[in-house]
């Protein structure tokens, strides 16, 4: 019983991380039709920005405070990187979807190589606040606190994004743009500016995912973003591309399936069962993948 609780909570925590990584990807895809391979680079950028900030801040500050500042810095860095990539690389190739994918592929390869060149290929350990590294007793199981932090952040982000989409003018434009971009343009709204904002938002969220993922892994490494990106892709496809609620549900399902299979079958089966889940969804409900409303 206590094992099951631990696995469920870990699965939820992992699902939360997947949601963080996938939500930006899903929004960008839903609105712009851009499959952003550089999203993994945004994740890595966030992780490294947080790590460097935490190292640079004086030790007299507590680890928790430094982590908080680092997270803010990372989110800003992610947003700036996202905006710059959109304006410089994506915008000139407007409506050339394949070329946009190719450019982000090149960028992701170059970014991983550059990270490796500057900070080395080896993982660097990241400090973790003592309270996050501790455990709490719940239903007879000792549960790591950090899992709850991930879930809380993901829930807050989900609520924030839903509120943004539902109650703001920007959200209205995004929702309308996902539905019918041509019509929105015809109504005289500058969708391109919205693209830039959404890309920056995606970068910021990805960077936040990078910070939390480096906390989860205990290290930062150049390939980290790429490995998280694969699961983010799977989540986006299962969740119906462009749908925020679908992404959240899919992220939870993927996290839980992965953890349960890893524990009850064998280590490594979890990753495979996620791909199997994807294949099942494709076979049973291919129509749900053609895109959805935000």
């Amino acid at each position, binding site marked *: 019983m206590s094992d099951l609780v631990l696995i469920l909570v870990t699965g939820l925590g992992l699902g939360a991380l997947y949601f963080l990584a996938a939500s930006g990807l899903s929004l960008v895809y839903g609105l712009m039709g851009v*499959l952003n391979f550089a999203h993994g680079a945004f994740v890595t950028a966030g992780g490294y920005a947080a790590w460097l900030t935490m190292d640079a801040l004086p030790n007299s500050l507590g680890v928790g405070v430094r982590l908080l500042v680092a997270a803010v810095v990372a989110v800003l860095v992610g947003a700036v990187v996202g905006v710059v990539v959109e304006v410089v690389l994506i915008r000139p190739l407007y409506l050339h979807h394949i070329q946009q994918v190719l450019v982000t592929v090149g960028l992701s390869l170059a970014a991983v190589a550059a990270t490796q060149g500057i900070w080395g290929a080896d993982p660097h350990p990241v400090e973790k606040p003592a309270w996050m590294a501790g455990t709490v007793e719940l239903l007879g199981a000792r549960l790591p606190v950090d899992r709850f932090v991930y879930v809380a952040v993901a829930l807050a982000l989900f609520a924030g994004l839903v509120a943004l989409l539902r109650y703001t003018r920007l959200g209205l434009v995004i929702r309308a743009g996902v539905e019918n971009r041509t019509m929105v343009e015809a109504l005289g709204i500058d969708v391109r500016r919205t693209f830039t904002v959404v890309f920056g938002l995606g970068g910021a969220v990805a960077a936040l995912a990078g910070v939390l993922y480096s906390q989860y892994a205990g290290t930062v490494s150049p390939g980290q973003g790429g490995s998280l990106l694969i699961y983010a892709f799977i989540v986006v496809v299962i969740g119906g591309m462009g749908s925020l609620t679908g992404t959240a549900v899919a992220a939870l399902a993927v996290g839980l399936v992965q953890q349960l299979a890893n524990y009850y079958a064998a280590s490594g089966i979890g990753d495979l069962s996620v791909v199997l889940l994807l294949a099942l969804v494709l076979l049973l409900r291919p129509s749900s993948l053609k895109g959805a409303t935000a």
Partner: protein
Amino acid sequence: MSRVSRMTSSPGRRSLLRVVPPLVLLAVLAYLPYLPVELPGVLPGRVNGPGSMQLLATCLVFAGFALSYDVLFGRTGLLSFGHALFVAAGSYLLTISLSAWSLPLGVSVLVALGGSTLLALVVGAVALRVGGIAFAMVTLAFAQAASIVVLRDPGGITGGEEGKALPRSAVPDLLVGVQNAPYRYWLALGFVVVAIVVVRLLVASRAGHAMAAVRENEPRAAVLGISTYRVKLLAIVVGSFLGALGGVVHALVLGGSGPHLTTSEFTLSLLVMVVLGGAGRTWGALLGGFLYHYADARLTEASGSGLFESLPDGLRSVLGQPLFVLGIFFVLVVYFAPAGLAGIGGRVVRKAVRP
């Protein structure tokens, strides 16, 4: 009208012009192992030395990989991120058949090719239920699953991160050892020739025309009565078969299988090779694959040789990463030369012929 008459007036000469240069190139390439010349800076040591032969053999195998991927991407317009799966399947099935199951070489090659082609049929049939970008993501996920399996090393048959070496006794003596590098080079050259012949036959066939139709306008091809699903599946199966054949040759040339063949990075690099060289052109894909691997191998060496000595530390360590240079170069090609190196070459040739 004049264009048509010009084409029909001298069909013999035109087809001769198409056939002769490749044959001359093939003869030159096949003769390289007899060429004891040094090309300082271009190749390590003599051209027919073991170092150069091994490098050229691997470059040729990568040219073949790129050509096999071009069947999907350049010829049919399928953006697949799972092609590494089939290359790795060919390589690993050969190594496993030889080492774990102790099959003879001929049977092992058949197992590797048959198994990979079957895998391509199944994965392709599932993945093709979605189109466009979703197809790319799904194929990526399948390839990633294979990568995980290989790294977990089930039952010790894949060797995990270390990879698995071919058992020496199972491979003909001609393909083993430093002094036999020319034979491995000819093997790689043979693979490229087979790949070119298969791709040219496919492109010229009815199926090849259907593939081009799907690439140019899929809804229109469907309206014309072409079964686009079957055409795309055929492209995946043929491309994967050639990729698996390349995997087999790769394993024989390098003496084993490594997990780098299964990574998503390798899949992405296949895409980079094809676009760099020129998608949808036989010579473009071959050139892209060859140059990509050559640059990858030589840039690593250049960074170690002190070529960037005068540059500041940070810049030097970044430029020492071949993938950084290739990634940036790739982005530039996508922007400024969408038809790739073959496109640039074609323009130069046309200008030279008709100034």
